[in-house]
């Protein structure tokens, strides 16, 4: 029986790994997720097959409770509230670890007859689990706007206070490992860890939350692995460690994609450094959504029509060749690519034509303004490359604007808009563009040529 269970465990963690591999590519992600879920089902079945299992009713109670709470929560949450949902799920996972460690402490009278490594692993699991539970809950609260999203600090005291609490947790843990068996010790560990979780996450700004959640996720994985060591359960060890490792890499990737460093974020939590600042240029404090070449690539790769809207910035960057290459790639995937040419895009009559002809773009795919405007509503992605004034809705809506009365390209009639430019600064007319603050719009900052080259690369990798 144990052999069978062990083999099932091996199969199940193999499924986790295989599923995870799938999750890293857009085409295999959906299937990957269900493969991992299958692995999980197998692991649960294998565990229930263990000889001498009892307390079936209580087990059923727990599972039913979890299902009843978890399924509707996952089903009903709005797409925009996904991140906090993940935070919550992560938190309860950490909570479970902490609780199990606590019970282990209680049933073994402070790990008295267990090998030292079991005690250490359990205590590690308890601390990290508790940190993760409380940290995740604070993250959830912030994202759900139950707590203020802005960093909350208690000033200079933050850092020493964090240090003291951490020390308390470690000391309690050492006393237990050394033989202490008073229940207050484990409660001390759990509470101190809880305080750390709360105090580290509270001072972190909302923009950094996804990275923090990912970090807590990796930590929960590690705590699960530690719990696996303590319980001598291969499935726990492997699954936990994989999550710990891949979660760390992922956290790093996410931080990089957002141009943040993990130490800086965590230091922020510890009271050092300043908290996140969202990229902004024009002194505007309206929120701007910025995106990456990878996302832009995926968005376009799954579109059926893309409209390229070139402007002076494409000319300055001399990005026309790169744009053509991108369009070729998209077309080879069966996506229709058109170009919306505004009459005064650029700085001379026919500026865009000259450049696109140089890059050998077919004349037929160049659309005049009127035709373009009737096409935008059937367009999945409008890719604005260094155009600004010619897309500015102020020309239609604001009689005081210097460009009032100029016909424009209604790019925001399309399903989504990606704007490639170097900063939030204005174009020829020197005025702000409301398009950039539209919820449909994502900004890809950087020189147009290198941004497009980046997209090309990502498209090839898909």
């Amino acid at each position, binding site marked *: 029986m144990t052999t069978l269970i062990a083999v099932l465990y091996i199969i199940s963690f193999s499924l986790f790994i295989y*599923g995870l591999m799938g999750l890293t590519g857009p085409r295999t*992600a959906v299937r990957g997720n269900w493969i991992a879920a299958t692995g999980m089902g197998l692991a649960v079945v294998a565990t229930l097959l*263990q000889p001498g299992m009892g*307390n079936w009713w209580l087990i059923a109670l*727990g599972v039913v409770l*979890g299902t009843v709470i978890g399924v509707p929560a996952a089903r009903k949450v709005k797409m925009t509230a996904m991140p906090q*949902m993940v935070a919550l799920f992560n938190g309860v996972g950490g909570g479970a670890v902490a*609780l199990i460690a606590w019970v282990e402490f209680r049933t073994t009278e402070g790990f008295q007859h267990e090998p030292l490594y079991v005690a250490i692993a359990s205590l590690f699991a308890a601390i990290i689990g508790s940190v993760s539970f409380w940290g995740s809950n604070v993250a959830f609260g912030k994202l759900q706007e139950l707590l203020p999203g802005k960093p909350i600090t208690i000033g200079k005291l933050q850092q020493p206070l964090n240090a003291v609490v951490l020390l308390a947790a470690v000391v309690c843990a050492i006393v237990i490992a050394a033989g202490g068996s008073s229940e207050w010790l484990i409660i001390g560990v759990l509470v101190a860890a809880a305080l750390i979780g709360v105090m580290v996450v509270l001072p972190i700004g909302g923009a950094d939350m996804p990275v923090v959640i990912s970090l807590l996720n990796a930590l929960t994985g590690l705590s699960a692995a530690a719990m696996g060591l303590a319980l001598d359960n291969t499935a726990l060890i492997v699954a936990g460690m994989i999550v710990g490792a891949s979660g760390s890499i992922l956290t790093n990737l996410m931080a990089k994609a957002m141009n943040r460093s993990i130490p800086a974020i965590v230091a922020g939590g510890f009271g050092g450094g300043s908290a996140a600042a969202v990229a902004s240029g024009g002194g505007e404090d309206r929120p701007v959504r910025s995106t990456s070449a990878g*996302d832009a690539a995926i968005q376009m790769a799954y579109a059926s029509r893309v409209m390229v809207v070139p402007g002076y910035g494409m000319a300055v960057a001399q990005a026309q060749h790169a744009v053509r290459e991108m369009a070729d790639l998209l077309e080879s995937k069966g996506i229709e690519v058109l170009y919306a040419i505004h009459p005064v895009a650029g700085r001379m009559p026919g500026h865009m034509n000259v450049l696109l002809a140089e890059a050998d773009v077919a004349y037929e795919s160049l659309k005049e303004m009127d035709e373009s405007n009737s096409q935008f509503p059937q367009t999945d992605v409008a890719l604005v490359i260094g155009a600004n004034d010619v897309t500015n809705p102020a020309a239609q809506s604001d009689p005081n604007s210097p460009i009032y009365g100029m016909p424009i390209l209604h790019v925001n009639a399309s399903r989504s808009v990606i704007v490639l430019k170097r900063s939030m600064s204005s174009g020829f007319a020197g005025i702000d563009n409301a398009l950039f603050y539209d919820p449909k719009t994502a900004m890809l900052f950087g020189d147009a040529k290198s941004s497009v080259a980046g997209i090309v690369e990502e498209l090839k990798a898909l």
Partner: protein
Amino acid sequence: MLVESLAVLVLAGFVGFAVISKVPNTLHTPLMSGTNAIHGIVLLGGLIVLGHGADGVLNKILLVIAIAFGTINVVGGFLVTDRMLGMFKEKPKQDAAKEDGK
């Protein structure tokens, strides 16, 4: 025992490390969510400890909560991930367009 487990631990770490190399940004959040669901495996810990009979009411209560927590983590995690991945599902493109139109 410990050392064999350590070997497993290290190898699992390498697997986790090697699997995540280049992930498009759009998949960061679903991937986080997916790994999050996988560490719901802690549910197994609850099952084992409770299944092998933890005495005392408090222990039982704590473990039932732990199992419930673990279950939420697992079930909710996979479901949420699946929803996030909606955009990558076999696309019934026309329908999606229609939905927008409605």
